[in-house]
C-alpha cells in the first residue's frame, strides 16, 4: 500500500498562485473557498538586505489527523494510503473539524452546508494521475508521490534534503514536507 505525501520545495516556489487557481477551477469551488492558499513571508529585513519565502498551505494529510477524531458523524475519514477526505453525504456541517485542524485546512462550504478540504484529487490519484496543483506547477515546486516507495522522488527528497513539517510538535505527523534549503 502506498503512503502519499507532498513535498513543497520553497527554493523553487515563486508565489505565483497557479496551484490555488488550478485547484479552485478544477474542483469547481465557490469564490470564497480555497483549499491551498499560498502565503508569502517577507520581504523581511531592511532594504537591501531582505529575504522572502513563499509557504503554500493545504491539508497535511496527517498520520494522526485530529479532524478525523473530532468528526461526530464519521464523515471525515482516512484512506489506507493516507488521504484524509470528507464524505459529503455524511457531513452535517458541525465544523468540529474546523476547530480541530491546526492548519486551517478545513473549509466550510456555505452553499452546501458542509465542510470540504483538499483530498489530493483522490479520483485522479486512483487513475494514476497527479493532483491538479502538482500538475500545474511550472516551477516543479510541488512533488507528489508515495513515501513508502524508496525510488520515489518524494522519498529521496524527504530523506535526502533537510525538510521540515509544520507544527509537528502537536503530534499530528503531517505528510506535507517543506524544503527551504537551509536549517530552520
Amino acid at each position, binding site marked *: 500500500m502506498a503512503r502519499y505525501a507532498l513535498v513543497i520545495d520553497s527554493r523553487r516556489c515563486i*508565489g505565483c498562485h497557479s496551484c490555488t*487557481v488550478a485547484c479552485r*477551477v478544477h474542483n469547481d469551488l465557490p*469564490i470564497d473557498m480555497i483549499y491551498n492558499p499560498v502565503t508569502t513571508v517577507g520581504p523581511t529585513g531592511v*532594504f537591501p538586505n531582505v529575504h522572502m519565502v513563499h509557504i503554500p498551505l493545504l491539508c497535511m494529510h496527517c498520520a494522526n489527523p485530529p479532524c478525523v477524531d473530532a468528526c461526530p458523524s464519521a464523515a471525515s475519514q482516512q484512506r489506507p494510503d493516507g488521504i484524509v477526505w470528507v464524505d459529503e453525504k455524511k457531513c452535517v456541517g458541525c465544523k468540529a473539524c474546523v476547530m480541530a485542524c491546526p492548519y486551517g485546512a478545513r473549509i466550510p462550504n456555505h452553499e452546501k452546508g458542509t465542510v470540504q478540504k483538499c483530498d489530493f484529487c483522490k*479520483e485522479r490519484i486512483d487513475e494514476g494521475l497527479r493532483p491538479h496543483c502538482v500538475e500545474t*506547477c*511550472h516551477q516543479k515546486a510541488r512533488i507528489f508521490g508515495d513515501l513508502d516507495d524508496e525510488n520515489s522522488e518524494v522519498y529521496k527528497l524527504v530523506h535526502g534534503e533537510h525538510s521540515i513539517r509544520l507544527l509537528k510538535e502537536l503530534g499530528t505527523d503531517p505528510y506535507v514536507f517543506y524544503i527551504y534549503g537551509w536549517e530552520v
Partner: protein
Amino acid sequence: MKKVDLEQEGIEIKKACCYFCHQNCGVLVYVKDGKIIHFEGDPDHPTNTGGLCCRGNVNLIHLDHPARVNYPLKRKGERGAGEWERISWDQALDEIAAKLAAIRDQFGSEAVATAGGTQRTDDWARRRFMNLFGSPNGFHNSHLCWIPTFMVETAIYGWCPFEIDLGLSRCIVLWGQNPGASTMPEMSAISLLKSQGLKVIVIDPRYTETAAKADLWLPLRPGSDLALALAWLHVIIYEGLCDYTFIEENCVGFDELTLHVEQYTPEWAAPLTWLTPDQIREGARMYAMNRPGNIQWGVAVDQLGKPAGSAMHARALLRAITGNLDCPGADLLTGPSPDFITDEEMELNEYLPEEQRAKQIGSDRYKLVTWPGYSRIAELTKKYWGKAPTAEWMCEAHPPSVFKAILSQEPYPVKALLVSATNPVNSYGESKQVLEALRTVDFLVTCDYWLTPTAMLSDYVLPIAGSFERPTITSTYGCSDFLLTSQRAIQPMYERRTDFEFWRDLGLKLGQGEHWPWETLEDAYLSRIEPLGYGVESYDEFVEYYRYHFPEREYYKYKEKGGFATPSGKIELYSSTLKELGYSPLPEYIPPVENEIDNPELAEEYPLVLTTGGGVMPFHHSEHFQIKELRFLRHEPYMEINPATAAKLSIEDGDWVWIETKRGRIKQKANLTEGIRPGVVYTQRGWWYPERDMRDPELGGCLESNTNVLTSVADEDCDPLSGTWANKGLLCRVYKAYDSDRKEDN
C-alpha cells in the same frame, strides 16, 4: 470534485495552446461533440512540460465568460454611450470597407492607422492588409517590448541573439526581467540550473519574485540602466576581463570603445545608479568571469525613453567584448529560419510604394524602427541570411505621434483607427492624450474579446476568437529559426472570428482578393510550413505528429558564413549602421528623462523616483480584470513604497494614495515593503475596473489607477533611435487619498 470521465467514447484530444501571453504553453484539450469537457497542461510540450500559470488555468472561464463579445456590434447612440446594435459580419465588413475607402479617397491611405497590442494575433495578416491598402501607419506598443532592442542588436551583430543557450551557461543576467511573474517556464529552467551552479544576477529596482532567488541583486535607481551598462563596459575592459581572441577575430571598433568608456568608471556611475562601486564591479566581474553567460533581454531597457537606445547599445556590447555570442552556453545568433515561410515573407512589404513609406508617421525623427532604419537593416540581413526581420513590429509608425496626429492633424490628418487586441487607453503612454485621441478620431473599429474602455468608444466592435478557438504558430515575432504549432480545439463559439479572418475579409471587400488565397488560417499556416518537408497533408496533421520544428543547433555560424550581417562583416562595436542613420556609433551617456541631478527644481516638487510597467501575476498587461477567479488574488491595484518613505508621508499599509507626476495623478493602494529602496515608488500597470459603469466618461475608471497617466511620451523624452517612450525613471510625489476624493474625473 468535478468528475469528468476522460475515457468515454467520442473524445478527441486536441493539441492546443494557451493564448494569454506569448509563451503559448501547450495544452491538451478534451473535446466531445464540438464542446470542451476538460483541459490540462501538455506534459510533452517543450515550453511548459505540463505547467500552467494562473491565467492558463482559467482558459475555459475565459472561453465562455458572460462579458465576452460574441457578435459584431455597431454603435447606435452617441460615441461611448454603450448602445449597440447586433449586426452581421457581412454588414460590418461592408460598412467598414466603404468608410475606409472613402477616407482613402479624401485623405489618402495614410489617414488609416492600426493599433495593436502584444503578440496575440497574426499580425503578418494585418501588415499584408495595410501594405495592400497603402498605409504605412500600423503600430503596436512594441516599442516598449523588445523591438528597439532587436533592431539595435541587429545593427551591431547582424541579428538579435534572443535565443539563450541556457543549459550550458554559467551565468545569466536578468536585466529588468522578472520571469517569476511573467515567463514561468523560463523561471523554472533558471531555478533548476541555479541549483546546479548557474550564477543569477538580477538588475531590478524591486525585490521581485526573481530577485529573491538571485545570487546577486542590483537594485539600481529606476531609469539608470545606461550608467550601469557603461560602467560594466569600463570594468570589463579596464580590468582586462575581455575575450581578446574573440574581439581580435570578430569585432571592429574596440580601440574607439576603450577610449570612449574610460570616463565611465564605477565611481562615476555610483551616484547615478545609487549602487556602490563595489556592487557595480561585482556584477560586471560575475558576468565576465563566468563564461559562457547570457544577458537575457527584459523590457525595462526598452522602456527608459530617451536613454533607451544608448542603453541597449551598451548592453549589446557587453556580450561582444566577453565573447558571449553564438558559442555553446551563450546568446545565439540563430538568424531567421531558412526553412519555413517567415512572417516577413507573408507581409507583402514590396507592395507598399516608396512614397507611402516616406509618409510613415515619426520616421523623420525616429529612424531605427521605421522605414529608414528598417530598410537598411533588412538589406543587410537579406544579403547575409536571405531574409529580413518581420516588418510588422520592427518597422512601425511612432504610436504617440499617431495619437498626436489624430489630435493636431499634423503632419497630416489621421481619420480612422483600427484597433486589434489592445486597449490603448491603458497600454500606451500618457493615457489622457490617448483617450482624447480615441474620442476624437473620426472612425474607430475595435477587434477584441471584451468591451474594453477603447471598445466602448468604437463605432464597430468585432468579436474575436480566443485561445482554443484558433490555431497558433509560435515563432518569436516571426524571427526565430524554430516554430511551435498548436491546433484549434473547437471552432469559434457564437460569431467570433480570428483576427486573420478580419483582415482577410476586409481585404476582400477592398479588392485585395488575389492576395488572399487561403480560406482558413490552417491553410495559410500549411503554406508556411510546407517547405519544411514533413510531407503533411494538413496543418493539423503537422501539429498532431510533429508539434514543433527545432533545427539542429549550430554554433559559430559566423565562422562558416564568413562574418556577420553588418556593413563590415564584423561585429561593429563602433556601429556604422547607427552612424549612417545619424546616431552616435558608440553609446553616449544620456541621463534618465527626469532626475534629481539635472532637474533639481522638478525633484523638489516631485521628490520620489517612479518605476512603472512591471507586470504582476495573474494579470497580463491590461487584461483579465473581469475574471473573478483571478481577480480574487489581487482585487485592487497596489503600489510599492518603502516603510521609511511612507512614514514620512504618514502613509500606512493599505491606504489609498495618489501617485502624481507632472502629467497627472492616479490612485492605488500602498504596499509598504522593504523590497524597494527608500525614495523609490513602483506602480502596477494596466488597471481598469470592468465592474464599473463602462460608458463614457466613466469608461470603467480607465484613468483612475492607470499607471500610463504618469508616463511620458513628450518628444524630448523619447529615445531618438526608436522613439520608445518613458515608463521608468520618472519623478513623482505620493500623498494619501481621502474618501472625499476617491474618484478621479476622467
